Structure formats: structure tokens, C-alpha cells
């Protein structure tokens, strides 16, 4: 594949017992691109994310990210390479504060040294203040009101705010690639629209972040994606712009059943 590709999946396979969740799936994502990953329920979208982020080891195939082979890497190594994700079902730590949750995403950039954390309180304070200002700025891009309540616990917040915080948690470490797993889940149509606008405007400010988006709301995919990959029963059945794949016969059959 060409050099400007950020991520290449080549023939990735993953089975659970006798079920082939992913079968010879290959696709690429270019730098700065927004790729929509779509398909009916159970088609392998989230499994692709889990293989990409190291939660599942692939049975075969290759994952190359930014020139480095990430096939079978641990989740920690994938994060260090610059891939951050959100989850279909929110995985925020509800009893921790907004700031704490965002700092979980910042783990790799914060000094985790024993001496620094326990005995060098002055240096820790300086680092904390800088991280706090950065988190505040990032949250303010999504919701200025939320930025003033960083020490409130996440548990009391409505779904859209939780999604925003999850995305801030993924963005704080400045990843090269952001994986969004169904950001519209559990939200109304208007909230989803609002959230996608926020993501697009933040992306512009961060200078062309690459995104893979798993989504059921086709309106969202049509609006934001540059290109789409369609999965069905763990296989790629189509690839192209939204208009191209939407008019594809195989895709229509996958979604509506064959006539």
C-alpha cells in the first residue's frame, strides 16, 4: 500500500470457536481520512476494533500502523503507538471525577515515576496544573459549562456529556488515529448531530486527525465519512464513498435481505 496510508489491515481473521467473526478482512485508512465502518449487527465491526486495539489476538493477517507492525500487540503497545478508542457501551469510571477520567487517557504522557509521584510534590503540582489547563481547554471545545466542573464525579452526568468526556479522554493524549465505536448509542438524533459537529470542529482544530467510525445511523455516516467499508458476516463486501456503497447491490441485500 502507498506510503500516505496510516493504517493497513491485510487479510485479518478472527474466529470464536466455530464462528468466523472476521474472515480475510483488508482495508486501509489514509492520513486525515474519516473512514466509516458499517454493516448489519454482528458483522464484525466491533471485533475489528478489538483486534486493532489488541484486546483480541488475530488468528491470521497483518496490522500495520504508521510503518510499524502491530499484529498481536498488547493494548498498551497499541495505545503507545498512537491509537485511542471509545467504546460502544461507555467505559468511564463513574465514581471518579471528570478530570480523573480524562487523565486516565493521558496516562502515557504523565510521569508515572515512584519518586515523582510520592515525594516530588512540587514537580507533580506543576505537571498537574499544566494537565488540568489542557483538559479544561479540551473539554471547553465540546462544552464550556462542563469545563468548570472538572472535579464533579461523572456518575451524575447525562449520556451526551459522558460521550463527550469519553472522547476527550481519547483525545487528550493526541492520538494519530481515533476509533469511535457507535458514538450515537443511547443518544437522541439531535444529540448525535450535536456530538458529531463537536467532533468535526475539534478535529479541525487538532489539524486533521484520522478517524474510523463505527455507526448504525446512516445519516451520521453520510455526513462525516470520506469513505466507507461495509462488513457482512465478517467479510468485506463493499468499499467506496457513501453514495457508492449505498447503491451497491450486495450492501442492499445485506441490510434488507435479497429479494
Amino acid at each position, binding site marked *: 500500500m502507498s506510503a500516505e496510508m496510516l493504517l493497513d489491515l491485510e487479510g485479518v481473521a478472527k474466529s470464536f470457536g466455530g464462528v468466523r467473526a472476521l474472515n480475510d478482512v483488508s482495508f486501509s485508512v489514509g492520513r486525515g481520512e474519516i473512514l466509516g465502518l458499517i454493516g448489519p449487527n454482528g458483522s464484525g465491526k466491533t471485533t475489528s476494533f478489538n483486534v486493532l486495539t489488541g*484486546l483480541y489476538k488475530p488468528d491470521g493477517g497483518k496490522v500495520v500502523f504508521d510503518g510499524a507492525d502491530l499484529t498481536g500487540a498488547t493494548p498498551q503497545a497499541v495505545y503507545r503507538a498512537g491509537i485511542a*478508542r471509545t467504546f460502544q457501551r461507555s467505559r468511564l469510571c463513574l465514581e471518579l471525577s471528570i478530570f480523573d477520567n480524562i487523565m*486516565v487517557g493521558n496516562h502515557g504522557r504523565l510521569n508515572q515515576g515512584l519518586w515523582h*509521584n510520592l515525594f516530588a510534590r512540587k514537580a507533580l503540582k506543576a505537571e*498537574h496544573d499544566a494537565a488540568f489547563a489542557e483538559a479544561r481547554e479540551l473539554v471547553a471545545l465540546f462544552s464550556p459549562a462542563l469545563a468548570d466542573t472538572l472535579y464533579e464525579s461523572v456518575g451524575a452526568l447525562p449520556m451526551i456529556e459522558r460521550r463527550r468526556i469519553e472522547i476527550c479522554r481519547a483525545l487528550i*493524549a493526541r492520538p494519530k488515529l481515533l476509533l469511535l465505536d457507535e458514538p450515537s448509542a443511547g443518544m437522541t438524533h439531535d444529540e448525535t448531530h450535536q456530538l458529531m459537529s463537536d467532533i468535526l470542529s475539534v478535529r479541525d482544530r487538532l489539524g486533521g486527525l484520522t478517524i474510523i467510525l463505527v455507526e448504525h445511523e446512516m445519516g451520521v455516516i453520510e455526513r462525516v465519512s470520506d469513505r466507507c467499508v461495509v462488513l457482512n458476516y465478517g467479510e468485506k463486501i463493499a468499499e467506496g464513498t457513501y453514495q457508492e456503497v449505498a447503491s451497491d447491490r450486495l450492501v442492499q441485500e445485506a441490510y434488507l435481505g435479497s429479494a
Partner: protein
Amino acid sequence: MLDRISPFAVAVLAALVGVVFAIVFMEQESDVAVISMVAAAAVAAWFAGRIGVPERVARAAEINPGGVSAIAAIGGLAIIAAYAEDHFPLLMLATVMLYATVALGLNIQFGYAGLVNFAGAAFFGIGAYTSAKLVGSGVPAVLSLPLGGLFAALIGLLLVFPVVRTRGHYAAVVTIAFSVLFKTFLEVNDTFGGPQGLPVGAMNLFGWDFGESPTLFGIEASFYLNYALAAFVILALAFTLVRRLERSWLGLALDAVRLDETGAACYGIGIRRAKIFAFVLGNVIIGVAGALYGCMQGYVAPTSFTFSDSLIFVAIVLLGGMGSPWGMILAAAIVVVLPEKLQAIQEYRFLLFSIVVIAILLFRPSGLLPRRVRRYFPEGGR
């Protein structure tokens, strides 16, 4: 009503009431007096909660943590000073402080990293037996206390692999097995004195002999004053360490591991490393407390470090509130002092603590002094 007083003044008043209550309470001999005072304390605590005392004290601690800790330290020393001449109350106070220290160690494992350790008494015992062996062979206390912690951590490493590899209940079962094994090992092992245990010599710190009664302001104090003061120092150090750990990126990483391992891994947090760190650090603190406990008791025996004692330690953590360092001290005081004062319940204390633990889990799962949202620094960032 409290709005006209500053939060700091509320904290000072609360500490004053607490200290006076503790001193008067420990004077009581009759069961009726003890029970009435416990009832009065429960009502007072409920009332204080209603008029917002806890929020104000917590607020004071957020604005001026050093000041609030200083008030608590002065209060603790005042209680010790009030009983400077009496053996038994001092022994009890020192035991409260050492149990609170153990609970702080368990709290790192259980409250932060989510590792349930039912072998707390075993690691406490390793510390105690270490000092029995070392003090007897003339090793100075400055070394024997840290070595107690070191040995507890080293022997704990035997458990690291199963505890870190298994999750939840399985890890708990591993520690239960270790706890039972530890006592049996001591009972059959002659080097450690078998079922009779070993005598422990008096501690000596830079020529300060802990077996001698110190004379202060012309009053001859009990020699337990030495141990009470040493226990106070160890508790203060452990408390500071746990507080700093909680308010750091390391504490945050432990929380993330406890609450969601998968999520934590996806943000680069090394799960195994975090668990090993919490397990080892907790055992070091427990071992140091055990080393001093051994010297203070004057002898160590397997019956002092049983599985039931481990359960008492876990009960302290649950009662105080997981993750809440102040809660550990309050709960240790209740769990140690109450059965001593109420001879009637002495025999049923394990039964009573079981009931208390069930009640806490049902009605107040976050404990007596629930943990608050983490603030890294006083008024940090706002």
C-alpha cells in the same frame, strides 16, 4: 447554624469533642456506662451529619490539609498523653494505631487496586516474627522495623503470580489458603517456636530503650508510652504515604485498574505492574506495623495471626470505607476498643463484626467515612 463559623473552626471543634469523648470513654468501666456512651456517640454522629459537620470538615481539609492533619495529630497525642501513666489504655491505643496502619496497607490493595487480601494477619505476623528473630539477635530497631516490612513483601511475592493472574474471587481464595498455611507452618516449625511462639526482646532505638519507663515532667510514664509514640509515628508515615499515593497519577492508575481493567489497558496502563505495585507496597506497610506489634507484645505466637484476624482487618477496611484513609483510623478504633471495653461482647466479637460487615455492605456500602472525589492538591486548579 454552622454557616457563621469557618470550616476550619468546625474541624477544631469536632476534634476537641472527639478527643474529650475518647478520653472519657476509655475511663469507663461499667457496661452500662460504655453502652450509654456508644449510644450517645451514635446520636451525636447522626446529628453532626444532619447539620453538615462532615462536609465542613472535609471542606477544611480541602482548603488546608496540613492544618487539619495537624489538628488530628495533636488530638491523637493528647489522648496518648492523658493516659501516659497507664499500661492498659496505652497498649490499646497503640494497638488501634497499628491496626489502622495495617488497614491503610490493605486499603492500597483492596480499596485502590481492587485486590482482596485475606492474608493481612499473615503479613502482619511475618513482620512480628521478623522482629522476634532480629531483635533477639541484637539487630537495632531502626533496621528491624523496615526489615519486617521487607520480609512481608518478599514472602508476599510468592503470592504475586496467582493473585495477579487470577481475578476477583480466585485471588481471594489464594490469599485465604496462604493465611491458613501460614499459621500451620508456624505451629509445626521449631525455629519459630512452634505453637508456643517466641519471646521478643524490648526495642532499642538509638539508645532509647523501649522497655524502660520514660520520665516526663517529673512523672514516671508507662513503658508502653514508648510503643504508643512509635505506633503514632508509623501511622502518621503510612497515612502520609497513602494520602500522597491516592493524590497522584499512580493512585489514579490503581483506581482505573480496579474499576475497568479493559479500559485501563486500552489507555496504556500496565495491569500487572499496577497490581504488583499495590500488593507489594501494601504488604510492606502491614509488615512494618507487625514488626512493632511483635516488640510491643513481648512475644509472638501463631494464634495471634489467624485467618479470623485477617477477617478483622478486612472488616476495618469495609467499615471505615474503601479508599478512605480517615475511615481506616475511625474503624480501627471502633473495632479494637469496643470489645475491650464491653467485656460482655468480647466472646462474640467475631459474630458481631460479621453482622456489622453485612449491615455495612447492605446499608452503607461506602463505609462510615466515605471516600471523597480525588483532589490532587488543595483547591487544585480552580
